[in-house]
């Protein structure tokens, strides 16, 4: 805010001293057509800082030396080490299984929730609709503690299964919000028409609604996969000892000693999520829609 105001203020001062007539035109051109240089520079700096840690991790994952501060020469030794480390590989597999199962589970439950909330307009469903949003605004540490106590209280041994259950609980709301946004944009006259033409309710869902919400399903599925794959806090509280999900394994390694192999793992992890998210952003276009996936994610 301050930088912009400074930019704005500096462009305003000349107009106060120069003759009255040309001033308004100049001011307007500056603020609307031209770009205030300070604001643009500030935003550019923001993006540099935003990407700096990512660039550093990727760069040093190719460092030949065991240093995180000086780059010697290009080498893939840390990747070789990663792909020969059985513990890390089993963690990678565990994370892929967790994300995949959690994605399918939360897609099914989240879509059911979205359909029911959007089409039943009773008081209980409105209350449930609000309740379904609560996990979105609950800090993960609270959800994690709660899930841990639930599982230990019920005597369920912590394992991949408990992580998956916790991740599904956390992801249902994401799917429900995204799919519901798509559904509310779509008139229910279409399914009415399908019903008039002799569809059973089940056929109306399968033939009319599902194809219409497919982009939202794909986008939210990819989003959930990426979120769960990266999720550290929930996994940390609900995982068993072996195999641990990748973020939990990385966390314990970071605390023990700093190893450049973490950079190689981190690069692979970030690559997976970034590709998934980038893909989910272009999904609506793949389905021939002009809107971008950003609307799906930001809920706009």
């Amino acid at each position, binding site marked *: 805010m301050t930088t912009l105001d400074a930019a704005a203020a500096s462009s305003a001062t000349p107009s106060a001293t120069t003759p009255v007539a040309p001033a308004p035109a100049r001011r307007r051109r500056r603020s609307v057509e031209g770009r205030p240089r300070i604001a643009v520079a500030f935003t550019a700096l923001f*993006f540099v800082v935003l990407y700096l840690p990512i660039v550093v991790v990727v760069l040093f994952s190719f460092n030949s030396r065991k240093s995180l501060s000086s780059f010697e020469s290009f080498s893939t030794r840390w990747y070789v080490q990663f792909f020969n480390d059985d513990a890390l590989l089993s963690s990678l597999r565990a994370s892929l299984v967790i994300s995949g199962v959690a994605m399918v589970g939360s897609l099914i439950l989240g879509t059911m929730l979205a359909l029911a909330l959007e089409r039943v307009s009773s008081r209980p469903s409105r209350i449930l609709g609000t309740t379904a949003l609560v996990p979105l605004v609950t800090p993960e540490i609270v959800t994690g503690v709660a899930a841990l106590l639930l599982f230990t209280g019920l005597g369920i041994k912590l394992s991949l299964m408990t992580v998956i259950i916790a991740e599904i609980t956390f992801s249902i709301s994401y799917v429900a919000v995204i799919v519901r946004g798509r559904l509310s944009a779509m008139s229910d006259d279409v399914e009415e028409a399908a019903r008039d033409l002799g569809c059973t309710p089940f056929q109306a869902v399968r033939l009319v609604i599902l194809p219409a919400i497919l982009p939202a399903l794909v986008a939210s599925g990819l989003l959930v996969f990426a979120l769960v794959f990266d999720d550290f806090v929930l996994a940390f509280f609900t995982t068993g000892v072996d195999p641990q999900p990748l973020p939990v394994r990385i966390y314990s390694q970071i605390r023990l000693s700093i190893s450049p192999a973490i950079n190689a793992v981190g690069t692979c992890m970030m690559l997976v999520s970034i590709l998934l998210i980038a893909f989910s*952003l272009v999904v609506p276009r793949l389905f021939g829609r002009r809107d971008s996936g950003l609307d799906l994610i930001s809920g706009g």
Partner: protein
Amino acid sequence: MAASTRDTDVEPTRTRRSASHTRLWGWLLLPPAAWMMAFFVSSIIIVVLLSFGHVGPTGRPVFGASGANYAALWNETYLSVFLRSVVYASLTVLLCLLIGYPVAYTIALHGGRYKNALVAALVIPFFASYLIRMYAWSTLLSDEGLVNQALRWFGLSEGVRFLNTPGAVVAGLTYGFVIFMVLPVYASLERMDLALIEAGKDLYHGPLRTFFAVTLPATRAGVLGGVLLVLLPALGDFVSAQLLGGPSTFMIGNLIQQQFFESQNQPLGSALTVVLMIALLVFMVFYLRSTDRQRRES
């Protein structure tokens, strides 16, 4: 008023629909609702119940009805951590606003045809593992890290101690959650009629006054949403204080994590979690009331 008339307009189509149809939707609600009850609502209830319990003789947590855990939190050590958490989280919110607003403003008003690409560029790194990005900062800010090397190379300083300082923790939180401020502010700027700014400039003379009299009030909803979205994760975070800070900068999240994984005192950890939940609920109620007031005003 307007809302209720609209409801009656919709009514005929709603009743026309066959009973079996509505029942189908009702059935669809059952599995997700049951899941959320079984794994979310019940788990939160357990946390609240266990916060009144104690550690049994075998080391296992036992339910009870004593306020001993809450009484134990009422001492200088815990209170200073609570205070620190609130101060760090508030500073984070302030920094996110001071950094996020200009960025959202620049993209929304001057992004031109790169607008969507810029927003995508904002969103994408947010999905790269938070843990890895925090780890990267811890290496960047270390005594021999690249930031200190750069400072030395430019002759600006002989080395600055970044890690284990409150500044590093707040910076880490700001870095991690600034996107939650940029997106809602951006969305509210996008919804705003830009002619208003033009009109404001003619009316108020000067972009600074226009900003405070027109733009900021018009984007109030986005700012409030951003404040809440940053505050929620910032107050509960423990990764930033763990990787960029030390015991002297620990926040409530670190205490919770310690009770569960080091001290094995789950009832005390539950009481800490309940305190965190109450603090967040207070902010949430405040947020809902202020958005409500805004809706009534407009």
